[in-house]
């Protein structure tokens, strides 16, 4: 755990807590599978998780009850988790990103140690192409 004290900024590096972790997960799922939700489900989940609006605020904006908003969000959430369970797209892309970063690190190590200019140029090109995918 790292804590940096600047003049007036407090920068803190810590592990994320459960509720926020869930919020981030839903937010990412919504970006991936958002098109599979109904318009209302997408709008409410976007407002709740990405714009950090409260249930009451969403209810007020849409002239419906807070309970109705909660029900729509819960339904949308379970649909997102169900889709992820079946398709595992988020899990796969996160895994791919991690692997890509590892490959890039390995390639830069080889690039640093390689004395052949032609190989270094090819590696540089491969690194650039892979960086675009990351």
């Amino acid at each position: 755990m790292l804590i940096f004290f600047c003049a007036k900024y407090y920068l803190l590096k810590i592990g994320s807590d459960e509720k926020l972790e869930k919020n981030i997960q839903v937010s990412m799922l919504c970006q991936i599978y958002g098109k599979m939700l109904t318009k209302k489900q997408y709008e409410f989940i976007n407002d709740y998780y990405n714009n950090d609006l409260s249930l009451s605020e969403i209810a007020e904006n849409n002239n419906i009850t807070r309970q109705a908003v909660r029900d729509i969000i819960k339904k949308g959430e379970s649909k997102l988790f169900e889709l992820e369970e079946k398709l595992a797209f988020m899990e796969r892309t996160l895994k791919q990103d991690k692997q890509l970063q590892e490959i890039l690190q390995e390639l830069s190590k080889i690039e640093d140690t390689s004395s052949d200019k032609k190989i270094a140029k090819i590696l540089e090109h491969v690194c650039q192409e892979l960086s675009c995918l990351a």
Partner: protein
Amino acid sequence: MVKIRLQRQGAKKAPFYHIVVADSRRARDGKIIEKIGSYDPMTEPSTIVIDNEKFAAWVKNGAKPTDSVKSLVERVNKK
């Protein structure tokens, strides 16, 4: 009412949040009054940057932080 909330930024697979002060009625159009910090959950461990002086000043003036912002600030103050 003025609220202190998280505002999502960043790419599809890389969420990043700004901690902003905004009018509660204008939350959806992205108009903010002031940015007072950021939260990056994708780093290991996650990174929180917050201007505590500004946060305290806004709260003193009646701004209401959301639960997520409250929990972030609590985590900063605990350390």
